[in-house]
């Protein structure tokens, strides 16, 4: 951490600001000196009055007046200097803001370039639209194909499905015919016809999906 490495951090602006501030400090010191002087003049005037030396008292007061005018002059100079320092510091802040904006813009531009510019985006959007239109066409064609060719098969399948769904609803009526017998001796025999029926249905069902596909 020697002088050489860190002195690079001091820019010309920093030196200029330091000069300004040093001037301001000098004016401060000058004002302090003048204030001490005016206080002394007042004391001298009082002393002279006590000794009945009107002339000297007046002289001291005149000097005091003059010094006070100097003080007010330096006040305005001080204000100017401080204003200037403030402006310089603000300008530096503005420079930083500008630099930040510049950086941000560059990044944004780089990203835009990566996306291939407006034409690229346009083209991409067009291509996307085209692809989607194509897809739509294909699906419409497929839809139309199905509705004309296999309308009947679809209807058949619907009927089969309806029967399948409605079938079990009809079934509960069967047990009512043999309420007197103690227990079904061969439950398999009773269920056999029903099984046959479902098997037949399954056959028709197996055929339809192939056609549908």
């Amino acid at each position, binding site marked *: 951490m020697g002088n050489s490495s860190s*002195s690079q951090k001091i820019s010309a602006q*920093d*030196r200029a600001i330091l000069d300004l*501030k040093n001037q301001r400090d000098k004016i401060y010191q000058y004002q302090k000196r003048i204030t001490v002087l005016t206080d002394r003049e007042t004391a001298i005037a009082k002393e002279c009055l006590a000794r009945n030396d009107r002339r000297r008292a007046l002289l001291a007061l005149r000097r005091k007046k003059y010094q006070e005018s100097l003080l007010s002059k330096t006040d305005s100079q001080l204000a100017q200097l401080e204003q200037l320092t403030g402006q310089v510091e603000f300008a530096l802040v503005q420079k930083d803001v500008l630099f930040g904006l510049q950086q941000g813009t560059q990044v944004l531009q780089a990203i835009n370039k990566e996306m291939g510019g407006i034409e690229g985006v346009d083209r991409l959007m067009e291509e996307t639209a085209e692809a989607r239109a194509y897809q739509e066409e294909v699906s419409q064609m497929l839809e139309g194909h199905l509705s004309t060719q296999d309308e009947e098969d679809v209807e058949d399948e619907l009927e089969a499905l309806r029967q399948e769904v409605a079938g079990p609803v009809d079934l509960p009526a069967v047990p009512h015919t043999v309420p007197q017998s103690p227990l079904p001796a061969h439950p398999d025999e009773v269920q056999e016809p029903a099984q046959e029926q479902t098997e037949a249905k399954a056959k028709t069902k197996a055929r339809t999906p192939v056609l549908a596909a």
Partner: protein
Amino acid sequence: MATAASTAAPFPFPSTYNFPPFFTPQPNNTTRHSQLQKWSSLIQAWCRHHRTYRLSLVDAVDTPLFHNAVLRKRLDLGEARAIVDWMTKSEEQGGGGQRAEWIVGAAAGGNAAPNSVAWIWWRRPEEWADVLTDWIDATGQRGVVLTVFELVQGEATVSQEFHGMDVEVMMKTLNVLVKRGKAQVFGNDGGEGVKFF
């Protein structure tokens, strides 16, 4: 610049100050050590109260610090010198933790005798550096150029502890910050400025 204008409130002396043997070198080693420690903290507290950074022993022997008017007891120059000398040594050397430092050469003020003026470090420059950094952070003044005069005498620092600090102590403090890489001192002699990072 030996003593800044004494503050309104009187300095509260510790109870040992009213204990006569306090002003006589103690022969017993243990007692001596405790005596030195008490004197060290008294000197530091006194200097802190009066915002004194450099203590001239010749002048100080006549101040209430070394001269108890009520007891009519005083510390002579040799003994005061011995105490400050003890304060300059680090604790490893059996001293008072480097709470003082003799000022040598021209800085001591002309042709003053050696070991007559000393910095009293009631805050060492390293500790001042922390205070300064805290203030810079709290006021958002990183990257701002400030003059040393502004730091010590400026209106912005009136409420700060380092206001009215001895310029040399301020320079030592700033040099600590420079070594830490937290500041850079620049500008010519008498118009030094500092930029904080």
